[in-house]
């Protein structure tokens, strides 16, 4: 191993286990000064755990850590901060009912002249500057709860930047961001790198890794597979290292016969976030919805699913007008909905994997008012196997699964119902390439069986690769429809989404 002063951090033979899982096995990890170091691996490979060891959130069972060549122990997050390690967690950690300024400076509020008082003016002024650095033009007195998830992520970044760390760990910072914000984030990262700050960057989007990282370390099943300069590798190399086998092209929806119209939305409105949206979805079709954050995509899907009341327009299922005032009614009509924020809206984190999967299917598993326990377990087991969800047992709390496996659990829940219409809001957020391929295959399979799928996604290659047809939204309206995604490019979508639809290619009908 190099012991020159290039090396800022060295982790040596780190082991960490949880009940039923050895999350890290003898992992070595090294970060040099002023480099952007990508850490990649499948869901559950141990990336987050390794970083939690580093940040003192999960002390290792064994192994040593060297900082600037000196052995250190990091028993708690305060120790990590004292060394200059700052971490952006995969699961957002902002406090919803405090405002942005208070969140950014939580625990280190600037002192006023009188002791023990906070200099609020200075706090908000500094917060404003930090927010501006990440391109957020919002009042620092806004409550976190009022922000959409992408902006929260940027607040999280602002907070981490304000810490003056010499090592910044970013665990999937981009999974909730659209292209535009990703670019802003990358600019900041390059700036920090120029100042000599080292960054560990975790992402499942390899294209990003190749765009920003200098070196990459790959983990698989809790073990180190290898570490190399990015220039020595191709995307295929990295994928092979991650999954341990060749992976064929992972988008490619199989052609499914497209059938009759299953869902029709006419002139649907909700306040000024969804304005007069009309479209139709057919059996076996995957309809992609693209747009910038804040374009109203999530609001549209939530309105269709009855989460929020519509203020105008109507919805038809199988040609018949329907009233949907609640998710329960939507489910009754054969809809399923995978929400954008799995932790806040999707999962029962402290409950078991089994319960999380069978939630909506319980009705059909009940005889004379009593749930048939074996039927419920079998159903859960079937879906754990079918979606290859990695969990030591059905009784494991969902909280303890890795992010990608959590997402699979939410998807599994709806598949138990065999819905007619499935709405997926960012279905592959935070999901590894292998699992993504599985989810695409799953969607493709569902489509083949006649399910109509409405898929909102901020990942343009995904929208282009998976959809049969694409809607682009901007400011609550549909501004473009792309009937032939194979013939369209990311630029076509971006232009429409950002407001220059006229320049789009022939595939676009504005």
């Amino acid at each position, binding site marked *: 191993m190099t012991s020159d002063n290039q090396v800022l951090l060295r982790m040596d033979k780190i082991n960490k286990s949880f009940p039923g899982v050895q999350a890290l096995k003898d992992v070595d990890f090294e970060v040099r000064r002023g480099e952007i170091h990508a850490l990649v691996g499948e869901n559950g490979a141990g990336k987050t755990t390794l970083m939690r060891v580093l940040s003192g959130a999960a002390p290792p069972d064994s192994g040593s850590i060297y900082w600037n060549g000196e052995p250190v122990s990091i028993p708690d997050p305060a120790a990590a901060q004292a060394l200059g390690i700052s971490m952006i967690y995969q699961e957002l950690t902002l406090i919803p009912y405090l405002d942005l300024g208070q969140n950014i400076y939580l625990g280190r509020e600037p002192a006023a002249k009188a002791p023990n008082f906070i200099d609020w003016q200075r706090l908000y002024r500094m917060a404003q500057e930090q927010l501006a650095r990440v391109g957020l033009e919002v009042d620092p007195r806004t409550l976190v709860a009022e922000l959409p998830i992408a902006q929260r992520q940027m607040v999280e970044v602002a907070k981490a930047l304000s810490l003056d760390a010499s090592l910044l760990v970013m665990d999937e910072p981009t999974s909730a961001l659209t292209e535009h914000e990703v670019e802003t984030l990358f600019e900041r990262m390059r700036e920090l790198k120029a100042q000599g700050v080292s960054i560990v960057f975790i992402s499942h989007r390899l294209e990003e890794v190749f765009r920003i990282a200098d070196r990459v370390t790959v983990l698989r099943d809790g073990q180190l597979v290898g570490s190399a300069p990015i220039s020595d590798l191709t995307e295929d190399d990295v994928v092979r290292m991650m999954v341990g086998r060749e992976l064929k092209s992972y988008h490619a929806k199989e052609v499914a016969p497209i059938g009759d119209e299953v869902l029709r939305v006419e002139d649907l409105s909700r306040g000024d976030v969804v304005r007069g949206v009309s479209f139709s979805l057919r059996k076996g079709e995957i309809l992609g919805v693209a747009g910038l954050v804040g374009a109203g995509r999530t609001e549209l899907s939530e309105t269709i699913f009855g989460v929020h009341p519509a203020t105008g327009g109507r919805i038809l299922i199988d040609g018949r007008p329907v009233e949907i005032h609640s998710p329960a009614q939507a489910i009754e009509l054969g809809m399923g909905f995978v929400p954008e924020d799995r932790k806040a809206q999707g999962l029962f984190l402290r409950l078991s994997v089994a*319960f999380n999967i069978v939630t909506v299917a319980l009705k059909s598993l009940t005889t004379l008012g*009593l749930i048939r326990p074996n039927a419920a377990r079998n159903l859960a087991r079937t879906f754990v196997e079918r979606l290859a969800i990695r969990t030591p047992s059905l009784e494991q709390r969902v909280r303890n699964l890795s992010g990608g496996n959590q997402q699979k659990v939410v998807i599994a829940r709806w598949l138990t119902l065999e819905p007619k219409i499935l709405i997926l809001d960012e279905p592959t957020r935070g999901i590894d390439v292998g699992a993504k391929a599985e989810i695409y295959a799953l969607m493709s399979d569902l489509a083949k069986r006649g399910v109509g799928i409405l898929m909102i996604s901020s990942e343009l290659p995904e929208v282009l690769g998976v959809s049969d047809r694409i809607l682009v939204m901007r400011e609550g309206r549909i501004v473009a429809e792309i009937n032939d995604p194979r013939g369209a490019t990311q630029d076509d979508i971006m232009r429409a989404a950002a407001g220059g639809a006229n320049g789009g290619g022939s595939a676009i009908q504005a």
Partner: protein
Amino acid sequence: MSTVSAALGSLRRMDWRSFFQKYGLVISFLLLCGALTALSDRFLTVSNITNILRQSTINGIISVGMTVVILTRGIDLSVGSVLALSAVVMADALKAGWATGPAVALGLALGGLMGLISGLLITQLRVPPFIATLGMMTFARGAALTYTQGRPITGLGDEFRFLGTGFIGPVPMPIVLAAIVFGLGYVILNHTRFGRYVYGLGANEEAARLSGIPVKAYVSVVYAIAGALSALAGVILIARLNSAQPVAGKGFEFDAIAAVVVGGTSFEGGEGTLWGTLLGVLIIAVLNNGLNLLNVPSFYQQVVKGAVIALALLIHRAIR
């Protein structure tokens, strides 16, 4: 080498942890009983044990309702007052010549209604559970006092009194009733959709709503159940005393909350079991009984009980 020992070390740690998570409460309970057996030869006798069980039935029945409420992330402060109101109304009906069955049904319905009102305040008007049930606590107590003009209603008839003082075989009637409540509660919480969804909506209300669970209706029903169970506890209380006091049940909410919390149910919702609550109820009852047997002055008894509850919470935190 080092990894092997590390793995073994962690394995041992984990096993102890999950062992204590599962059996910590039983062990504490057995230790407590063991200590009292050693300290007093009157503790481990059939009559004393029957006595403890009988005394714990009222708190036990209320605690079942309280468990369900706390599982939904709520709290019910009104259980004692609701008990009193339904007790005096029941007693009055009995005095007016009602038969036992209809009078009890009236009491349970009234308790259920009071609970339902709290539930509707919470779900429809979005009043926080603490405030809504605090209001109900005051209201129901006031109603009970007004209804009786502050006077107890006594002389309830032998048929009714059977519910508090009778036996089925060797088993006192209150214990039979409490066992039925626990049994039914267990089945409902673990084996029905309603029960599983109570856990679900307690763990994440938004996710529950998006999964089509009728959150508002369920939460309202949960408070109605808690109210009806309070009324049932009231039946046992007045049947035993042969008298319904408008001030009955004061402070019962604290005993119930204490039992539920000692039993490991989390205020954060979605986590807890009736087994735990049963043990919590028994631990508190044994503690009360033991402190009496040992002639601990009643002021100190409070201090000891408080300390035990705090300790239980700390242990629960530590092993989680």
